[in-house]
């Protein structure tokens, strides 16, 4: 039925009881078919959102305070308020390839890690649904190894009356995934900007400005043995590069991740090797 048809029927309609013309029957049948087609199309599109979840199991690093992945995806309202408050713009929104995760926030630590420049985990404060939260509701279980033994101390706030971040769980753990390429492990030093002049990530350097993060490209390192991960780490006692002698008698360093690691990803961002020798494993728990 086009609009013109409905308009000609704009006068007194006289339905004939129990009698439907063949033409009308056909139109009705076609309408039912079309309706079923649209139903199939929309539901197909909707359920195709499950495909990425089933096939790739994309492991995204979520912002601090995120619930476990399944709970996170069910509670996130996809508004991006966490994106808006982040001072270093670490949080991005996922696209169509993430299926049900379209519009959910994640952090690409290599590009821009969370360095807690906001001091108070602003993204958690901004979240309207509790997807990012300081206090997990009692009925949700804690992933093994996710619980932090004590509130992490933010080095930037170390001298404040309240030096801790209000975080109860880690979002991942740093791992030296490529020890063979690590400069410290090879006994090499590092001079210059960590990621080159073209890198546009930001980091808060306490020696430069306590309040304002600056471009990583603007800071020059000069280390006898590379220990950039330890230097950049914003959390007290989360990572140390332990110096010692290798089998060949040369001095070298071994990056060691400690229980205080919250999984923020600053070490992954700052690591000068390509690809990064140290990485965050999202959602991973701490193992001694």
């Amino acid at each position, binding site marked *: 039925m086009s609009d013109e048809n409905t*308009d000609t029927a704009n006068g007194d309609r006289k339905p004939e009881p129990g009698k439907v013309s063949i033409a009308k029957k056909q139109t009705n049948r076609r309408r039912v078919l079309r309706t079923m087609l649209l139903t199939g199309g929309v539901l197909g599109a909707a359920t195709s959102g499950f495909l990425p979840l089933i096939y790739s199991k994309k492991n995204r690093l979520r912002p601090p305070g995120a619930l476990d992945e399944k709970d996170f995806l069910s509670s996130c*309202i996809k508004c991006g308020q966490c994106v808006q408050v982040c001072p270093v713009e670490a949080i991005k*929104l996922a696209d169509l390839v993430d299926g049900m995760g379209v519009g959910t926030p994640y952090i690409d630590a290599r590009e821009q890690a969370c360095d807690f420049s906001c001091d108070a985990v602003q993204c958690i404060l901004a979240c309207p649904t509790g997807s990012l939260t300081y206090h997990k509701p009692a009925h949700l279980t804690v992933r093994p190894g996710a619980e932090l033994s004590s509130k992490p101390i933010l080095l930037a706030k170390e001298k404040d009356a309240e030096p801790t971040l209000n975080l109860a769980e880690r979002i991942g753990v740093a791992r030296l995934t490529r020890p063979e390429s690590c400069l410290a492990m090879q006994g090499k030093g590092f001079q210059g900007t960590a990621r080159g002049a073209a890198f546009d990530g930001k980091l808060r350097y306490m020696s430069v400005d306590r309040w304002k993060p600056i471009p990583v490209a603007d800071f020059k390192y000069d280390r006898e043995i590379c220990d950039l991960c330890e230097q950049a780490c914003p959390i007290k006692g989360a990572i140390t590069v332990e110096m010692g002698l290798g089998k060949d008698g040369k001095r070298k360093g071994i990056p060691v991740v400690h229980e205080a690691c919250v999984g923020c990803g600053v070490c992954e961002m700052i690591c000068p090797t390509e690809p990064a020798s140290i990485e965050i494993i999202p959602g991973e728990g701490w193992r001694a």
Partner: protein
Amino acid sequence: MSSVHNKRFVDQIMVMFGRETKKPEQFTEKAIQVHQLKRMTNKEAFLNASKEAHRLQQLKSQKWRNRRWATLIFANLLFVISFALDIQILEGALTASRFVGFHLIDLNSALQVMLAHKHIINNLLIGTGTVLLLWVLLGGRTFCSWICPYHLLAEWAEKLHLYLAKKKLVTDQVMDRRLRTVFWVIFALLAIATGYTVYEAISPTGILSRALIYGPGLAVLWVLALLFFEVFFSRRAWCRYACPIGLTYGVVGIISPVRVKYKLESCFHEGDCRKVCLVPHVLDTVIKGRAVDTEVAIGPDCTRCGLCVDACPTGSLTFEVKGLSKLM
């Protein structure tokens, strides 16, 4: 008298859920008189002359459309500049936001999250309550035509569709309106059963709002596909037959005081209003012999877009705030 209106009130809710409109059985005395009078004067020349006179005098007004577009663009722009210029007036996206600090949460998105997550925190409740109150006052589906960014794109796609239809290049494929109710139920059940906010993954409202504020992504392709479908196959298909957001706000609008009012006496039953309407079934009451009273409120599925108010040559359709005229 009031039983006539009560019956119509319930009928209009059923129509919103997808029932076909039909000729009402009960009328008020006054309405019966007017209908009879109209039937008697139907074919007289003076009526046609009168119609002509009205047509000539009619100001081609697009007052309400312009106001609406301005509001819609302003609201969405406020989201965009709040983030882009960091002025923090309206932070977030249409699914959830903060207006100078006050939580606002889209009713359908809130519903999806509550059903999927099965745990409701205070901020979610406060934001949902605020928005519920807001749209109860402003008219439920007013959200659709005055705020939803997809609505504006769909309006432009509709113009293209109508142009092509006039050239006989496309025909409007009408579908069963009950589909929207079915979708609403399916998406609610999917959220409960799977624990994912399935509808949010394909919501063109959410996708567009985020695309405007945070930059477009591949998800915009889905929106383009919908618009393509509406231009070449079925007029306003998404808003008419699919969108659960529309139905959620429609239910909110049932008790809303803001609505379009129809006056039987001055109407010539020419049907201009029904041609421009997104939801023409709500205007079935303007068909000759259908109005149950001399003044009838248009039902809850109406998006209060005002296109019919602009289109009516006789001023028989006007915006009304129930109770306000009594106060003033």
